[in-house]
């Protein structure tokens, strides 16, 4: 077997895919929450960066993994809330606001990094912590499966668990219903007494939470330091993964796996001195094609069912009515 094929069919390669996928899956879920709320968040890049930074700094200065986790999450959620503030209160366009936030995140982390360590490259001079890797009992001792699925960083398991969590949150809780209702038809949501701005704020904060976990994994799991602009476009790849996954949990898991797979292959191929650029291009090409196909299909459905459908989704309205009745019953 060729060296490339034997690498790909090794358990180490499958293990690497999960590892590379983690910092894509979290932000992709974050993008999906915002998409479902109708306010696409392209600031995940900046959110991850800020969380990655504060996680490392707090862990280095307090020695507490728990405080680092809290700091990273607070930083990410704060960034999400900040975007919501710009968008909803200051009436800035959400895309331009997010572009500004990404720039701000890149600048402020390097700025603070320099003030704290005197170095503009990375925190390698600091003794920061990493989240532990865990062996799963029983699974660990199964050949092949154990080698692939056991021994990952705890945040990789958290990312996998975030997928069902996302499903329950968005599709089984009142908050999720409200978020989707606001995304599908803000006017209808408003008319049944939902505070649209508040729900969008919550959605963007949730988006920040997912981004924060992705960022923490990058600097405290994937590697054990913070370096400038270390997200390296993952916040944008997350948009691709969410789009390709149709903003649905299983779809996002699969698309994140695809991106993880291709990126892992690219790493192997680069080491074989073969041009890896064309392989690395594939997931973006696939996403572009998927985007086009989704859009064409949506257009066809819309044309078939007439103009009324444009602003009317019976499922969403049904869900809304049930939700409101339930809320009234509670009070």
């Amino acid at each position, binding site marked *: 077997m060729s060296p490339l094929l034997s690498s790909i069919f090794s358990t180490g390669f499958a293990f690497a895919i999960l590892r590379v996928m983690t910092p894509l899956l979290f932000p992709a879920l974050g993008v999906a929450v915002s998409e479902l709320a109708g306010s696409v968040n392209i600031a995940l890049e900046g959110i991850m960066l800020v969380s990655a930074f504060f996680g490392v700094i707090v862990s280095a200065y307090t020695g507490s993994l728990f405080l680092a986790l809290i700091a990273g999450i607070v930083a990410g959620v704060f960034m999400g809330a900040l975007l919501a503030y710009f968008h909803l209160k200051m*009436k800035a366009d959400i895309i*331009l606001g997010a572009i500004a936030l990404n720039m701000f995140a890149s*600048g402020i982390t*390097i700025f603070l990094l320099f003030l704290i360590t005197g170095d503009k490259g990375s925190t390698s001079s600091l003794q920061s912590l990493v989240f532990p890797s865990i062996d799963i009992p029983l699974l660990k001792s199964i050949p092949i499966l154990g080698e692939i699925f056991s021994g990952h960083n705890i945040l990789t398991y958290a990312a996998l668990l975030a997928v069902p969590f996302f499903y329950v949150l968005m599709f089984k809780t009142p908050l999720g219903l409200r978020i989707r209702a606001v995304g599908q038809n803000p006017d209808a949501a408003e008319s049944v007494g939902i505070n649209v701005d508040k729900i969008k704020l919550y959605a963007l904060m949730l988006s920040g939470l997912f981004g924060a976990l992705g960022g923490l994994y990058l600097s405290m799991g994937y590697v054990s330091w913070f370096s400038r602009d270390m997200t390296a476009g993952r916040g944008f790849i997350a*948009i691709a993964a969410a*789009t390709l996954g149709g903003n649905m949990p299983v779809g996002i898991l699969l698309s994140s796996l695809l991106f993880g797979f291709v990126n892992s292959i690219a790493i192997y191929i680069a080491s074989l001195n073969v041009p890896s650029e064309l392989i690395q291009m594939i997931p973006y090409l696939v996403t572009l094609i998927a985007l086009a196909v989704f*859009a064409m299909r949506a257009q066809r459905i819309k044309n078939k069912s007439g103009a009324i459908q444009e602003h009317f989704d019976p499922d969403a309205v049904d869900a809304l009515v049930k939700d409101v009745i339930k809320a009234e019953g509670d009070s």
Partner: protein
Amino acid sequence: MEKFILKYFTLIRTLIAILVGMIISVVLIYLISEMPAYSIKQFFLGPLLSKGRFANVIENASPMIFCGVAIAIAFQAKQFNVGAEGALFLSAAVGTAFAVSTNMPTVLHIIMVLVVAGATGAIWGFIPGILKAKWGASELVASLMMNYIAYFGGLYLINSHFRDKDAGFLVSLRLPETAWLPQFVPGTRLHLGILLAVIFAFLGYYFLYRTTLGYEIRTTGNNQKFAKFGGMNIIKVVVLAQVLSGMIAGIGGMTEVMGIHRRFNWQMTPGYGWDGVIVAIIGRNHPLLIIFAALFLSYLRVGGQILNLMADVPSELVLVIQSIIIILITAEAFLSTWKNKITIKEAEKVEVANESIAQ
């Protein structure tokens, strides 16, 4: 006075946003620098005090003007195309490939290379344009994906087929001299591309504000339904805006290669596409104002580099400041109460005047 403020409100607002950004930068420098007065002087005056640095300001502004005008045309049609980055990168790579594999007399060569680069950019704009116009696919996501495809495609083309193997690092073969844009001030890298950038800004202005198609683009951006009922072909307008946007970004990328390094030497995307978004915002999508916005951003950047080099403040200060400026400019609520107060005052004045006439 009030009338003046109302008439030029957006411009005044932009200037106030810039002023706020500057004040914040001064405060930040005071907070962290050991020698604040010196640092502040370096930051604000450094870019202006030497010929070389001032030339740097103008040089760096050139691709920003190209990308700013490119983005502005798309933004005027309300198309969130962030694909200038990819169009610029790929066009420069394809243009470089074309330039090194052809042989022509100089002026013709320059024109043909720019045509090839412009055409590449135009195709790059066409794809997200048609996807959006015909099927409603998000041009934001499409252009982001196209940026990555352009990046990897451009790298593949240069690194695998047109790489200079003797150079010791990853760069393309040197462009033949017939395809060089001349540099015209000795001791600097000021090149003809800068004049081209200004010409394209004027062309962009003329196109947007003095032609029917430009009017259609702006109308579509302001109110798509109105444009549609007015009989405009929305699909044509949206696609055209994106095609022109890609073309201008592509030409801008190629002039950088032809004017400065004379070979393709980007292994990372240079970020001019995002700078284009910034200067389009600061310049309010007006091509002529974009010239000033680009010079301003470039001035900040060079000031930041000097600050980094000569004083004890990191150049990333500029990133922080420019993001604050952008937020203030794009935030419609910023100063809106002020504007409302003035509007009411003016209206009351008119009322009082009318009453006195009536009496």
